[in-house]
């Protein structure tokens, strides 16, 4: 076998308090399409950034057998490693040719030679088999074409390693086919392509080999043809021993309970296909699926965080028309977003203010909670959820992730909700806090609160939930009761494996 063009050994990257990568090995051979797989937080983008010189890792990186250490993406690019990101970052007001050769324009008498620029660009586009007029303005083309131009630009620098970070997320099927055709052309010319995508179908169609990461560690390197989808999914999701092992799976006699929420044909274009869902009081419904499967999008529709464009909702026996979160909140629904920082925390405000925010907002500004009520609420929930430090005046940004999450949960608990929608409430928090949150969910259900629970960890979803709804490619594909991880995994992987 030929030598690998990229050989990374024992790569570790550490951020304050987080080990993003721990001793990962990664090899990339010339003339292959290599898929880098893993869920959110697995370390995919950290690995890419370690390779392109954005992060400074510990460990060894060899490029064509020579040890290298890049200080910034510019050096990596000079060494033949080009990256195309999800968002096209080119200049829309310039022509296609100018974009392709930006910063490297052929010059004549010290000035940019426009004619030579167009000619060089045309040659390159022809080599890739692209029928794009090099003299046309970039912004006039659809995103897919802009993406191809970005790739042409990357290839223009004699690149040997091409990194494509989720290039297909905004493309339709025909555009993906075109992208894959060009990837194959480049591969056959000997370019090593590193490909990141959340779409399993595409990974299986285009990649020759894949490397799977999980929680910052290497799971393994596989030939695509030899790895079944089921094995891939289980490699990506893993089977951690949950801290809740001792908490037996409770099966409440929930079927006799009243249906609290009924969604009929609820959906939103480009987010999640229309689905039906029933949630009963005191029931925990888990949503399982890979990232981008539509699990978050579904949860957001239930709360009105995004507006549904089809279907109806019924809550507590009455129709519920959600124009935004406020209607959901006054009906008795609470929601914790998966993006704690951007959509949960009000970082500069104190723990106290964060905790009472939703309750205060629902009362309106003219009916303030008295200082005493606030203090009592805060004291009660800080003790109940074991929030540390127990100093309500601390800005919430100074708390650890787990404690921040507990404050956000408390924000909803004080509103006495009938339904809680929790999107990855245990992500990125320490094991102890995780166990406390799982236990809390079980207790809430026992008190009659309905919970919709999302987690990337299947073990957790299966253990916490009475019922598991599986999503794949933005569609609800299964609803399982008393299920186990294998069955859920089979449905997530789909295709023949589910049969």
């Amino acid at each position, binding site marked *: 076998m030929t030598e690998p063009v990229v050989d990374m050994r024992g790569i570790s990257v550490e951020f304050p308090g987080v080990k993003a990568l721990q001793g990962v090995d990664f090899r990339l051979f010339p003339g292959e399409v290599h898929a880098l797989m893993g869920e959110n937080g697995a370390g995919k983008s950290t690995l890419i950034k370690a390779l392109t010189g954005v992060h400074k890792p510990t460990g060894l990186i060899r490029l064509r057998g020579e040890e290298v250490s890049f200080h910034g993406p510019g050096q990596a690019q000079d060494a033949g490693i080009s990256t195309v990101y999800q968002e096209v970052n080119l200049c829309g007001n310039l022509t296609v040719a100018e974009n392709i050769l930006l910063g490297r324009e052929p010059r004549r008498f010290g000035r940019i030679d426009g004619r030579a620029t167009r000619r060089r660009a045309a040659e390159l586009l022809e080599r890739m088999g692209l029928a794009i007029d090099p003299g046309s303005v970039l912004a006039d083309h659809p995103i897919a074409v802009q993406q191809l131009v970005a790739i042409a630009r990357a290839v223009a620098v004699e690149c040997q390693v091409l990194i494509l970070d989720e290039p297909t997320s905004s493309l339709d099927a025909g555009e993906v086919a075109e992208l894959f055709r060009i990837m194959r052309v480049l591969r056959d010319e000997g370019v090593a392509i590193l490909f990141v995508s959340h779409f399993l179908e595409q990974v299986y169609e285009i990649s020759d080999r894949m490397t799977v990461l999980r929680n910052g560690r290497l799971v393994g390197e596989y030939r695509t043809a030899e790895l079944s989808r089921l094995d891939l999914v289980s490699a990506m999701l893993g089977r951690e021993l949950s801290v809740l092992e001792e908490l037996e799976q409770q099966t409440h006699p929930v079927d006799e309970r009243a249906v609290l929420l009924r969604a009929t044909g609820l959906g939103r274009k480009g987010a999640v296909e229309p689905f039906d869902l029933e949630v009963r009081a005191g029931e925990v419904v888990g949503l399982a699926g890979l990232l981008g499967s539509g699990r978050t999008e579904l949860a957001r529709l239930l709360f009105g965080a995004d507006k549904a464009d089809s279907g109806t909702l019924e809550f507590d026996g009455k129709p519920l028309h959600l124009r935004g979160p406020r209607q959901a909140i006054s009906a008795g629904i609470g929601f914790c977003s998966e993006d704690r920082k*951007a959509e949960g925390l*009000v970082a*500069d405000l104190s723990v106290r203010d964060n905790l009472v925010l939703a309750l205060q907002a629902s009362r309106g500004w*003219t009916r303030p909670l008295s200082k005493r009520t606030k203090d009592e609420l805060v004291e009660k929930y800080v003790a109940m959820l074991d929030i540390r430090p127990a100093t309500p005046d601390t800005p919430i940004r100074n708390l650890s992730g787990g404690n921040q999450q507990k404050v956000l949960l408390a*924000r909803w608990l004080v509103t006495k909700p009938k339904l809680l929608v929790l999107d990855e409430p245990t992500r990125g928090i320490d094991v102890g806090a995780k166990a406390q949150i799982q236990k809390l969910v079980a207790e809430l259900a026992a008190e009659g609160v309905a919970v919709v629970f999302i987690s990337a960890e299947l073990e957790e979803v299966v253990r916490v939930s009475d019922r598991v709804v599986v999503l794949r490619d933005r569609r609800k594909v299964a609803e399982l009761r008393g299920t186990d991880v294998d069955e859920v995994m089979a449905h997530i992987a789909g295709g023949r494996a589910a049969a």
Partner: protein
Amino acid sequence: MNRLWWALGALVALLVLNVVVTPSFFSIRMQDGHLYGSVIDILKNGAPTLLIALGMTLVIATRGIDLSVGAVVAIAAAVTCEYIATSSDPGSASTALVGMAISLGLCLVLGLWNGFLVAVLRIQPIVATLVLMTAGRGIAMLVTDGQIITVNNETYRSVGAGFVLLPLAILISVAVLALVAVATRKTALGLLIEAVGVNPEASRLAGVQSRTIIWTVYVFAALCAGVAGLMISSNVSAADANNAGLWIEMDAILAVVIGGTSLAGGRYSLTGTLLGALVIQTLTTTVYTAGIAPEITLVFKAVVVVVVILFQSPKVQALFRRRPKRPVAEVLKPQEVAS
């Protein structure tokens, strides 16, 4: 808190400078039951800026900005004076009161317009309020027909030039300050404004009615500008559509910034804004009393502002924190360097 100290420090420094230049700076004398003195002058002349800066503080706390306040000052002045001047009884108290009421009602509408652009149409605040900043002076010109309108009405004059022991302008601005403090801290308004300013999306998901909140602060800012407009024009018993409140939006924004409220929105400080407004007004007064040449007045002002803002920047503060930790004793002696 830290930032407040810098604003306070700047104010104290300016006051000390004034005492050095004019030893009688702090003396206050009683005359005809009115208090007079440099300090009183500063407070009185700073009253319109303080009023506008209070409204601006809340707007900035929601991540916004209101550039139109100067134009609103001109409109408020123009409408009131025009009404009084053209009424059948231009000298009576009731005419003045009705005129002021109409004027403030119009300011409320202008605030609603700004709030509508920002909160409902989601136009960037700087652009949305630029509309009224430009158009507003035009409106004021239309109202006054391009003339400077002078009025002779004792009731109206008292708003800007009247005394109840202290100048009425001071009392009005202090009353508004107290009102805002109570309205934001005794209701939940302050919490909700800050939440919207720190993280609008998280606030939306927590059910905060950010639209209403944002709308309210723009209306309040316009009302403050309206009252300031009444003060400014009544002080001279005239409405000058071209010059009333010219550039006052800049002074107000500066006052807010010097007071430590970040233009990025979020936490705000009314005390800080009060200090900021006082710094700016003291600065202006100092320029005159210290006999600084009018050509370099603006440069002097700019230098002081730059210094205050520099000291507030996190990077400069970090420099100050690090410095004492350096082992001072290890600095090489000259002869060691030479050898």
